């Protein structure tokens, strides 16, 4: 059932291309239908595998001579991320409702991207995973370069290059792993059973991890994220921040960490106080948290604030992964979901509700417009989303970061206070942006009347409602997702990790 998420999406792409260029409404409807369809498929699949344990969906030999299989499988982590993808995809379509320039191409690329993402989350054969991973990259480029706003071509190309450098590193690692294993298979599970030589893991792990983590916005390879997010059209930036960054984190967990667990073992010597790659990446993640938040604190461009906030929040994901504690990693996966939803929401407000109406993202210019009064709905949504993003309890972000920090307390406690600093700064920038954009005091500058702005449309309200509901639901009943995630973390796939420094 889950496999249909991929098929439906690509089917949607095909049909989109066959549509006549004029049929704008049709292609919108079709896009929405496709997204909803694949989401429904996800739900059905979830209903079928509620336990979160590993379940193979399709497994047919693909390139026998290389032992490559077309192997789709899902565990709780995949399902969680599939749910996320479905939600964000639907919301993204809703928030792209106002795209009328080359609509069908837009949605074709959009759905292709989604299909690729679904593929990554579902494929259990490293080769297949990589294939989908790359498939997801190209549409991003065109979405941004064609429909984007500021410096779109720069942003798009930057994103593409970063992604490709990353995937190049991954490719090297994967091929090397394939060869070294000599098992003539690309199956994740079997590869994870292979005991690679430690010295090999010691260079393969950082290679693959960084390769994926680039896409997860690991500092200092994060700069594609803000530029890309800002340049992208709303729907795309929702997908970028909401889903694509998760691809990176997912790859880190699924491939890098599952295949090369010993890569995180201590080196046996210390450089600048670091004893292992684990420590290095944990620190980088932490720097990402604080640094991203701080940069966001002093941005003038509303969208950049959100862009950097994603860097900061993805830092939590990576930190959680590096804790190697069950709770920390569960928190990381939860944070993937949470950040996906929240960032999507924030970008929707900034890009669609505000920018498409006021045509400026400069916080100082937005101030005098008194958007709090003229766009109360946008203001409300942003406040709620902001609360969620700053990790107020009751929203998904809180539970996620809570668990990540718990893991961090156990793994490397000295980092925790710094993470706390990151959270505080996060609160500061969210609140600053919110005030400057929506509730600025009566200042000079052009105060525009309410009627000057087109009212919030139904699709926007629907999309916002979906995402908000998701965030709050996950915040109040994280158990629902944890039930999926925890068994997945205990699956044999991560035996290596557990044998390693997992506690």
């Amino acid at each position: 059932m889950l496999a249909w998420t991929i098929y439906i999406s690509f089917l949607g792409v095909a049909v989109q291309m066959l549509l006549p260029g004029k049929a704008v409404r049709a292609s919108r409807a079709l896009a929405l239908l496709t997204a909803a369809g694949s989401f429904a498929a996800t739900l059905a699949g979830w209903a079928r595998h509620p336990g979160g344990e590993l379940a193979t969906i399709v497994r047919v030999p693909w390139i026998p001579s290389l032992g490559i299989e077309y192997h789709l499988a899902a565990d709780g982590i995949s399902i969680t991320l599939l749910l996320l993808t479905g939600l964000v995809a639907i919301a993204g379509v809703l928030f792209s409702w106002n795209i009328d320039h080359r609509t069908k191409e837009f949605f074709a690329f959009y759905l292709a991207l989604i299909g690729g993402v679904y593929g990554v989350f579902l494929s259990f054969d490293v080769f297949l995973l990589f294939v989908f991973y790359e498939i997801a990259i190209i549409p991003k480029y065109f979405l941004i370069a064609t429909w984007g706003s500021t410096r779109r071509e720069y942003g798009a190309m930057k994103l593409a290059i970063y992604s490709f450098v990353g995937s190049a590193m991954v490719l090297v690692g994967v091929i090397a792993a394939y060869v070294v294993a000599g098992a003539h298979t690309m199956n994740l599970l079997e590869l994870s059973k292979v005991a690679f030589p430690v010295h090999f893991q010691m260079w393969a792990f950082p290679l693959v991890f960084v390769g994926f983590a680039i896409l997860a916005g690991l500092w200092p390879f994060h700069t594609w994220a803000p530029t890309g997010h800002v340049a992208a059209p709303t729907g795309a930036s929702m997908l970028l921040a909401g889903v694509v960054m998760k691809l990176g984190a997912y790859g880190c967990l699924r491939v890098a960490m599952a295949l090369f667990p010993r890569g995180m073992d201590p080196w046996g010597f210390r450089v600048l106080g670091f004893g292992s790659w684990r420590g290095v990446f944990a620190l980088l993640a932490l720097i990402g948290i604080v640094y991203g938040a701080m940069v966001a604190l002093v941005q003038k461009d509303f969208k950049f604030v959100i862009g950097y906030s994603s860097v900061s929040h993805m830092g939590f994901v990576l930190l959680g992964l590096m804790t190697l504690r069950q709770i920390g990693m569960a928190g990381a996966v939860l944070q993937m979901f949470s950040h996906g939803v929240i960032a999507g929401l924030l970008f929707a407000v900034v890009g669609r509700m505000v920018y498409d109406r006021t045509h400026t993202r400069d916080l100082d210019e937005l101030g005098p417009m008194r958007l709090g009064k003229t766009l109360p709905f946008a203001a409300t949504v942003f406040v709620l989303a902001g609360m969620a993003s700053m990790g107020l309890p009751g929203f998904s972000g809180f539970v996620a970061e809570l668990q990540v920090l718990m893991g961090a307390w156990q793994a490397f406690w000295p980092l925790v206070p710094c993470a706390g600093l990151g959270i505080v700064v996060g609160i500061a920038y969210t609140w600053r942006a919110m005030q400057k954009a929506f509730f600025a005091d009566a200042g000079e500058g052009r105060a525009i009347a309410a009627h000057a702005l087109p009212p919030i449309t139904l699709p926007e309200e629907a999309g916002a409602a979906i995402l908000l509901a998701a965030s709050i639901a996950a915040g109040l009943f994280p158990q629902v997702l944890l039930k999926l995630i925890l068994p997945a973390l205990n699956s044999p796939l991560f035996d290596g990790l557990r044998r390693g420094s997992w506690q």
Partner: protein
Amino acid sequence: MTMPLLSILTALPIFGALIVFAAGRRDAQLARRLALVLSLVSLALVLYLWHAFDPAGLLQFQERHAWIPSFGAEYRLGIDGLGLLMLLLSAIVVPMSIAASAQITERAHLYFALVLLLQAGLFGTFTALNFFHWFIFWELSLIPAFFLIKLWGGPKRSAAATQFFVYTMVGSVALLLAFLAISLSTGKLDFLELADLARAGQLLPAMAGKLALHAMTARQIGLLIFAGAFLGFAVKVPLIPFHTWLPTAYEEAPTGTTMLLTGAMSKMGVYGFLRILMPIFAEEMRWMRTPLLWLAIATVVMGASAAFAQRDLKRILAYSSINHLGYCMLGIFAAAGFAGNDPAAVMEKAAALDGVFLQMLNHGLTAATLFWFVAMLEKRSDGLRGLNDFGGLRQIVPVMCGLMGIALFSSLGLPGLNGFVGEFLIFKGVFPLAPWAAAIAVLGLLVTAIVILTILQRVFSGPLNPKWSAMADLTVGERIAVAPAIALMFVLGIYPQLILGAINGTVVQMAKYLGQ
């Protein structure tokens, strides 16, 4: 208790907020009346709880459901005397604040909805017994408060609101981190269970064992974590020097909101100390006794003195609230700071805690009323509230200044009014425990008296400032509105048993536990 009364109590204002927001869109008055009615309903509910509450028993009206087992989050509600008292206070203050917010006309439906949300936050905070559950409300109560200040506040509202919010958030984050550590080391987030652990002396070893931090002794770890939690509450109370958000916030907030802030929200901090820090970190508090007492003294004395230096009525009252809460802190630290559970010590601690409880209630009531009077004054002086803007008002608005005088005297601690009882008991309890602290803190009493009397003198007596010769006295409606508060001051002043009776069981048990 089959009926989840506490959940209902908490849910009521939330739905109320929705109703007000939806219904009051057109008509500010309607919104206000609706909100008032709703708050009175919850007051009635609280009174029913009060009635149904068994003074002897401890934890009552419990509700308990599993929530997130993986880190010990539970849905657990329940109140003992402390919780009940706090519920009562919030239930009393909120209607007062709504009644005092008549001048809010712009986006009134939003305003009153937020007020009700704030009330929900308060109720949730005072009834929750599991950190996770409690923290949700603890944080969520900030948001309405923030917007109440931000959207309806005075000229410097943005700065004030942000400072208030970020400042408190810093505290919360520290608190959160501390509790993460605890939950890791024990797997529990339940206040009572943690308290039991702490009493059994297992908490500290657990923490030390689980978080084997580099070369840190168990004591250091304990102190580290305690410091985190302490910061969270110290900011909220606030203890000097974590208080700088308060004067601006109180000054800039619309007076109705200030009533809420000082009347109810400031109690959240003290409540946190009583419910969380004192039971769970008893040992650490004992270690840190002296510094803590000094903090409390600083809060008492410097709060009062700073109040003396102010020229704006609201700021004066703000600082004097700091000073009054300082007494609570003094009582708590003294009670928590000393070991030994011989009957005498227990008795003294009980006295101090009794005083703290009463002081919380009384200060809430009195301060709220005072700000209310300031609001009335502002209404008549179109916004002027400088200490020296008035003078001789007693000749033209005798009723107002009579009633306000009573409120002022209550806050000054005149015997016979509620203000006296709490402070007296606190000092009575603290004196035998930490005579020096009590002695120094008495200065605070003196200075407060001077401050309050100065208000009386500058505002009400002396030559009449001709500017106000036309000022109107309290209307009948206003008199009726404030009457209950004033009456309550007398009642509590003369018959504190009303409260002491209800909280006795809790206090005595607390005092007993503190010994161990």
